């Protein structure tokens, strides 16, 4: 196995006297989907915010390509190739697909910020990049509001990749979507995985979705890694149990029957 694209070593994050993360380590490889699973409050959000440069770790080191890096702010992280797709997707549904794709990084001719938009070129790039992850956009000038939830997710992912994301963090991409849309998003993730050069960190609550696409798992509970492994060595029952923070499903069933 090649070296990991990004490695977290003993990441500790404290907010005052609250320890959100207590020595988390994980390796994420290019071309792999790494599922980050855990119950609410397990520290998933804190971990991705550290990767995205929103928070700085109290202790521990992040290695990118084997080199220690520190992401002082989100801009540094995104310049280093960390692309985060948040749940709200950061899109403006009233403007066009192209305008959303290039917002803040428009292709222009002339002095900033009054440079003239190279609309035709931006449209064709948008179309191409969307097609690469399997979404055919007939008209890139159509408002984002006309797209389905799955397509919007794809747009946000394509945008992150086009602007240099090598580590793609997807924050619960399938939540708040209908069944069919969830499958669309999983297909999109699969296509990104197939490229082979991008490391995907998939945060999800849904173990079925994780099983469908993930190569590797890390389970968080109360700020600690309580389990990890490659897809082939984990049975579905293990995953469900670890996701619930290690609680025995059998115990839970007993407790539930006790109420009846």
């Amino acid at each position, binding site marked *: 196995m090649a070296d990991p694209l990004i490695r977290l070593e003993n990441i500790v994050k404290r907010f005052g006297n609250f320890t959100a993360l207590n020595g988390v380590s994980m390796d994420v490889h290019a071309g792999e989907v790494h599922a980050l699973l855990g119950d609410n409050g397990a520290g998933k959000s804190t971990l991705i915010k550290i990767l995205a440069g929103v928070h700085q770790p109290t202790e521990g080191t992040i290695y990118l390509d084997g080199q220690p890096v520190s992401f002082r702010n989100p801009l540094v992280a995104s310049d280093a190739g960390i692309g985060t797709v*948040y749940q709200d997707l950061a899109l*403006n549904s009233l*403007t066009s697909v192209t305008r959303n794709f290039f*917002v*803040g990084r428009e292709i222009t001719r002339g002095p900033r910020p009054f440079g003239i*938009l190279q609309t035709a070129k931006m449209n064709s790039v948008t179309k191409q990049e969307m097609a690469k992850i399997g979404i055919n956009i007939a008209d890139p000038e159509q*408002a984002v509001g006309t797209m389905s939830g799955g397509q919007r997710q794809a747009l946000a992912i394509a945008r992150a990749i086009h602007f240099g994301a090598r580590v793609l963090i997807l924050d619960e991409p399938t939540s708040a979507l209908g069944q069919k849309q969830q499958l669309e998003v*999983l297909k999109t993730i699969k296509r990104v995985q197939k490229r082979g050069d991008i490391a995907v960190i998939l945060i999800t609550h849904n173990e079925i979705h994780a099983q469908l696409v993930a190569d590797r798992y890390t389970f968080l509970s109360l700020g600690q890694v309580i389990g990890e492994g490659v897809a082939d060595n984990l049975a579905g029952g293990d995953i469900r149990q670890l996701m619930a923070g290690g609680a025995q499903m059998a115990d839970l069933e007993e407790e539930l029957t006790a109420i009846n």
Partner: protein
Amino acid sequence: MNSTTERGGQPAGAGHLSETDRLREAGWFSRLVHRPEIGAFSGMSVILILLAIAAGDVVYNPLGIKNNLAIVAQLGIIATGACMLMIAGEFDLSIGSMIGFAGMSMAIMLKWGLPFGIGPATPLSAFLITLCLTLAIGWLIGTIVVRTRLSSFIVSLSFLFILRGATEVSFRTFNQGSTQVSGLPDFKETDFFASLLGGETFQWFYDLLFWLGLNFNRAGDQWVTGFDAKVAWWLVISIAAWFVLSRTQVGNWIYATGGNEEAARANGVPTDKVKVSLFMFTAFCATIFAATQVFDTNTADAAKGNLKELEAIAAAVVGGVILSGGFGSIVGVVFGAVIFGLVQNSVFYISWIDGSYYRMFLGTVLLVAAFSNETIRKRITGGI
């Protein structure tokens, strides 16, 4: 899994209907009715026809066109500023007071000389100093809004009162208790810069009408000689704003700022700078409005511009701008200004109705426009 990746490699084939295919339904007609300015355009067409029937010649004769376009242009200038700011998600209620303030500032300098006794003012120096003042106030309003995160509605409302008060106090201080200045020299006849603001423009249009035999008075001489200069200012400001908004990078930033500010910031758009600049742009528009008025009439009055901020916002809404920001167009605002300005001015020529009906009419138009904008927005965002 295998089948998934295989399908991914191919374009969506016939028979396999995916979500993307639904986007293709948009034809030219659907595209047209999705344009933000379509409602305003329809409204404007109806009004132009109705006025032709009800008022006829008085509206469409050479003088009627000149007078109507002057009112439309005035409103259009400030509506453009209001529109740009609203697309970025903010309001400026201080536009009207800013007009009064700028007019006062120019008139006082023209009558009593430049500040600190530097010497007498020329139209250019009075205008430039006033512009610096108003831009600074626009900057201040914008900066307060972005720094404190207070609603721009409240911040600019405070400046509505502050500026109007400052205007009246300044007038009374200089002019023995009067809140007006009249009888300024007719600068537009002697000064090139003043004629640019208060003089006439597009004289060739009326020369042409005269040559065609459509523009003469009882003595048989040429009747109307040209449009007010504010018409040219309106066109220049509108075209510049249209270009910036629809064709440039900063235009995309304006839409992004109003549509989803957090997202825009996350993607590197300097949203605070965008907003502050647009508050300064509305101040600029208000100053041009005031300057065209002062150099046209050679008077100034502390009450000038009263309620204009609301008319500007109303014209922008009629033009298809959505109150929550992120959507709208300058072309729509041009139509909105034509609707508002025409009705406001022309109803007085229709002898058989009370002129004040125009307010009731405009209120109704505004309500209908706001309602249809909301419908358009829902259609675009898929009914969410």
